[in-house]
């Protein structure tokens, strides 16, 4: 007898997704999916332990600082989430943020103000995302290959535009203000990251567009048959990814006040680590905003606490890698087996 969906592993328990509340509120939506909060538990334990072991941990300054330096990671993680959700992989984001930062600094150094520099960085990020999308969807190249090729080419442009130098002349003060300034208790860049988190959460969980992206990731074929324009949706996902990287690049340029041609590639894998950690939390088995934010905070708090305690420098990566492995091992089977690309 035919069972189309059988897999070699036992099926995951049925999980009820959206609840049937009649008037959805964002708040209720946040709680609705709530089942898997193991990572949150680890985060709380870490916070308690660090708070007890060092006074420097739970201070306003420290909290502010932990948050501000994570804004770039957060936006990069949001950036890689969209291709992941639609079942693709983007290896170009690291090269892209480096390219956009150098481009912004280059424009600034040639006398352009914030009104040109910021839109140029963000939009060009979107354009590169669009190119990634077109290469994968229209030319039909596997996203790993296409984005790797695009990324390597971008690295060349980055090096060429920088002329091999750190660019720091004429960075508009608006940009540095956005990167490092404060508005109320939190840095402006933190507000920006929070704003994007809320908007993206809303789009992904509450709008047809978001659900269509998840549907395409679940089965491109069925989505296509459903009349979803899967190619467009995927291209859109890549474009949004590029735009997010563009925003991240503005924050990066603002926070460092300069653009270094070597900057960027190192940010690729941490963004993926946070997105993978995110899968263990909130909606287990799905890439999601809340889970990613918790993942970022977990890694950030761990790093911060350990370095406040003064552990040797090589303990950090062991902690980071260990947290990722442990969180995934103890998570539900869906989270362990989440689809990555393809």
């Amino acid at each position, binding site marked *: *007898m035919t069972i189309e969906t059988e897999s070699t592993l036992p099926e995951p328990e049925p999980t*009820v997704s959206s609840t049937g509340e009649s008037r959805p509120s964002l708040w209720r939506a946040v709680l609705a999916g709530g089942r898997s909060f193991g990572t949150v538990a680890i985060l709380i334990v870490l916070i308690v332990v660090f708070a007890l072991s060092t006074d420097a941990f739970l201070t306003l300054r420290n909290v502010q600082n932990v948050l501000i330096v994570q804004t770039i990671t957060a936006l990069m993680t949001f950036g890689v989430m969209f291709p992941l959700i639609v079942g693709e992989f983007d290896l170009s984001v690291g090269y892209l943020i480096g390219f956009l930062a150098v481009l912004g600094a280059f424009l600034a150094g040639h006398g352009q103000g914030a009104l040109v520099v910021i839109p140029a960085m963000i939009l060009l990020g979107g354009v590169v995302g669009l190119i990634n999308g077109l290469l994968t969807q229209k030319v039909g190249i596997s996203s790993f290959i296409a984005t790797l090729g695009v990324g390597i080419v971008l690295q060349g442009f980055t090096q060429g535009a920088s002329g091999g130098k750190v660019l720091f002349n004429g960075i508009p003060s608006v940009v540095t203000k956005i990167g490092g300034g404060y508005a109320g208790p939190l840095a402006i860049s933190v507000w920006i990251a929070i704003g994007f988190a809320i908007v993206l959460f809303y789009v992904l969980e509450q709008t047809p567009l978001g659900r269509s992206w998840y549907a395409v990731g*679940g089965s491109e074929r069925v989505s296509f048959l459903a009349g979803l324009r899967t190619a467009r949706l995927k291209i859109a996902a890549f474009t949004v990814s590029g735009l997010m990287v563009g925003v991240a690049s503005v924050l990066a340029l603002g926070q460092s006040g300069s653009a270094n041609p070597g900057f960027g590639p190192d940010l690729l894998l941490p963004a993926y680590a946070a997105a993978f950690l995110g899968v263990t939390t909130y909606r287990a088995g799905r890439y999601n905003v809340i889970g990613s934010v918790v993942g970022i905070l977990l890694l950030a708090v761990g790093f911060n606490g350990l370095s406040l305690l003064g552990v040797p420098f090589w303990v950090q990566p062991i902690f980071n890698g260990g947290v990722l492995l442990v969180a995934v091992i103890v998570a539900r089977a869906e989270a362990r087996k989440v689809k990555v690309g393809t």
Partner: protein
Amino acid sequence: MALRTVSTPTMSLDRITKRFGDLVALNQVSLDLEPGQIHALLGSNGSGKSTLVKIMSGVYAPDAGAIEFSSARLGGMGSPAEAAARGVRVVHQEAPLIDTLSVTEAVAIFRGFGAAQLGPIAWGRLRRQVQRLLDRMDVPVSAAQQCSTVQPADRAGLALAIVVGDLFDDNAAPGARADPGGGGLPVKLLIVDEVTAAIPESETQRHLDRLRSVADMGVAIVMVTHRLGELEIADDITVLRAGSVVYREAGAPRRPNSELVAEMVGQPLVVGPGDTPPTRSGAGPDRLTSLWNAAPVQRTLSSAQDRSSGPVIRVENLRGAELHGLAFRAEAGEIVGFAGLRGSGVEELPRLLSGDDPWLAGQVEIGGKILTKGGRPRAMLDAGLAAIPADRLRAGGVASLSVNENVILPSLGEYWHKPSLRQRVVNSVIQAFDVRPPKAENLFGGLSGGNQQKVLLGKWLLLHPSVLVLDDPTYGVDPGARETIFDAVADAARRGVCVLFFSTEPEQLVRICNRVLVLRSGELVTEIPRSELTLETVIEWSYQ
């Protein structure tokens, strides 16, 4: 059968031609689809039915010819999205469900979320709407369920609800919009693509009734099927052979099924005695002999065993998710059928026997070897049990490998450094089962469904198992190929293979089995011996 009124066709295909490379998949096919009529599309495997459906639904553009639809003459239907917007809907054989979504979402991606692209989705209202729709269409599924938990039999109903739900929407009771002209209908043409193949026979009637009620609303329906029994509800019939229309019939009188089969196959048939369907002449009874002669001797699974003494398979207290302690035994040369309703364990048993699903408890003895733990497929194979899974897509063959490599996959080691042996063996499979096109190097994924099934049968029979488990082996297979398969199974039994036969069609059990075991609620309720084996007894016992 609905009353035939004179009306303009909903869709007219005019001399449609479609080529894939050198292959002409459709050759000048013309077809009229009338509102309110169910049009059956028949044809053997590879005759072009799927291709035609894809042209009607916008997946492919024809290479030549035109489509008249809603009084417009078109070169093609554009894209699936465009075709859907024009009112062409397709229920594909594989239910269009995404396991990671809820039923509500699965319906909504087809029918809309009731919100602008970036507007908030009113989840509660949406879910209630979907639930109402499912209730109206008599589909026993909850809107809040995860798709992965929907039962196979309900998937077809859900798929239909997804596709023609517009006709049953909130403001109209079922049938209220019936309008033979069909002018204002949101759905004008419904294509159901071999949907019943996945449903147990016992549940198909409900599905066919749903189809009739949709047609009665004025929708033109194209029904692709290999089950001739379902032709009862069809108004018109078109038979394709090798990409061309070879027969068409509108309304009564109806030619007997055997003649339709003859049209499909395109060669004279030897009609068997009684109600036995026709058998194709040609492929002789020696196909297994030549197969086993070609295969390397040391590999044939049962060669070492003594077939004459006692049962070759003995199952004790087998427990799984559905089965609660099943026991049975079977002898060499027997064909034992299994019947039962959904949930009775009849779907689970073959998966347990093949080692695909884990056993909770139990013991299986095959040819003297005792297996206690949920045997992995390797262990079952080594004991002499080969199982052909029903799920050809995910469990049958490797689409990206050649026919060649698929055939030898279970015994790769035997063919190491023996390319000529491999060639001979694979060719004998191709000949014995009439695989078309007969090229060992073709990618498995490029074959039509029926030919894939033949290759898989060859792959497993080649091993000369002592026990052969067949799970719905005629799934998606045309009547000609079906006969090839039945012949091969009978041959195998004659040569001492013990066949355990599972099918969604009780007729097949009645026709081919020596006895049938009926399962209910995970237990064996009776054994129907050959002497009492009729369609009635099987259905009676299953339902009781």
